[in-house]
């Protein structure tokens, strides 16, 4: 995979613009997911994800070919998403967040049932619930949780993406996890 990506990047750097579409194809779902989970709506997610690829293209000269491309790309995407959140909500604090109540009944039902229902409708509502809860987290915990549990990345990769020491990433994941757990228990 990495070898294929490297080859494509060399082609793009030589001036083959069309080759870039292959990179977009490989990473579009992952980048879109990060953007969507961070921002919570499809329109902004598409905007930010597309912008991330455009920035990657125009700044490709600064990308170090010996490092992992996905890490570099995720870094662009998460930075753009965090910028977008800051512009939307200049004073974002966990304390400001008031829990939505509409999903709570559903949620306590899930919480008490050991086995999760397989039904598609239920699955969809579950998705919504997860997204709602993630949106309740402050952006710095949100990004750590998304990269860890939705993109399945290692702590080292997350620390490179967020430009933070591994220890800080760990703390953010712990706090994010704890916040989600409390909401799960209190609801």
């Amino acid at each position: 995979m990495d070898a294929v990506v490297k080859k494509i990047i060399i082609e793009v750097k030589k001036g083959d613009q069309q080759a870039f579409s292959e990179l977009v194809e490989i990473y579009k779902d992952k980048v879109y997911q990060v953007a969507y989970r961070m921002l919570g709506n499809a329109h902004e997610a598409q905007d930010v994800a597309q912008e991330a690829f455009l920035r990657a293209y125009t700044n490709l000269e600064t990308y170090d070919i010996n490092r992992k491309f996905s890490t570099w790309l995720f870094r662009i995407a998460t930075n753009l998403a965090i910028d977008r959140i800051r512009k939307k909500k200049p004073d974002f604090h966990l304390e400001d967040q008031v829990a939505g109540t509409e999903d709570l009944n559903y949620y306590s039902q899930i919480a008490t049932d050991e086995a999760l229902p397989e039904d598609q409708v239920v699955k969809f509502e579950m998705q919504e619930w997860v997204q709602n809860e993630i949106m309740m987290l402050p952006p710095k915990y949100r990004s750590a949780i998304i990269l860890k549990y939705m993109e399945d990345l290692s702590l080292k990769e997350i620390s490179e993406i967020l430009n933070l020491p591994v220890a800080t990433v760990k703390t953010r994941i712990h706090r994010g996890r704890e916040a989600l757990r409390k909401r799960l228990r209190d609801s």
Partner: protein
Amino acid sequence: MACENEYSHLIHKYLDEEMTLLEKKKLENHLLHCADCSGHLRELRKTVAIVQSASHMEAPKDFTANVMKQLPKETRTNQWKTWTRRHPYLITAAVFFLVFIMSVSSIWTGGQKEIIVQGDGHFVVDEERGVVIIPEGEVISGDITVRNGDIEIAGEVNGSITVINGELIYSDLTNGENYLASTGHVAGEINEINQVFGWLWFHIKSFFSDVINVFN
């Protein structure tokens, strides 16, 4: 509750599998006796499972096309370089095809066939050149159709001209751009139907079946 605060950090470490064997044993021992802490761990595990269960998302269908549309324009030389690098075989195929058309055309024009003329009026058939000539001053009152030959008009045609397997020759091209004035007058449409293409298709098909036989 006090216990929860004290053990919270350890429980997270445990969850991340970042404990020494000794730390692990100690915590596991505590979990056996403390309902609060074992509950805490269970809830954390469930939280993680729920977050992970959120299935992976897909970008919208037109995502890649949208990105590609917004990229800064490539320079022309880059486009050509890129194209030739990506499609070297296509260039070879194009050159080959050109040669192929020319050779098939020569097969076609080499074949002798009888000239057939349909029309009303005076015309001359130059068998040697394979041309039907409407001499100056002559008028074809309706349509004229020429098959397997060219047509040269010095006179007039009141209807349309259809040339099958041949072409319309302008009798005097030396006058320059305005050559229609130097030829006769044509009132209707001029149709040139070239069956070379029909032939071509036939030859392409037989050519490729030959090629396949060679490779087999």
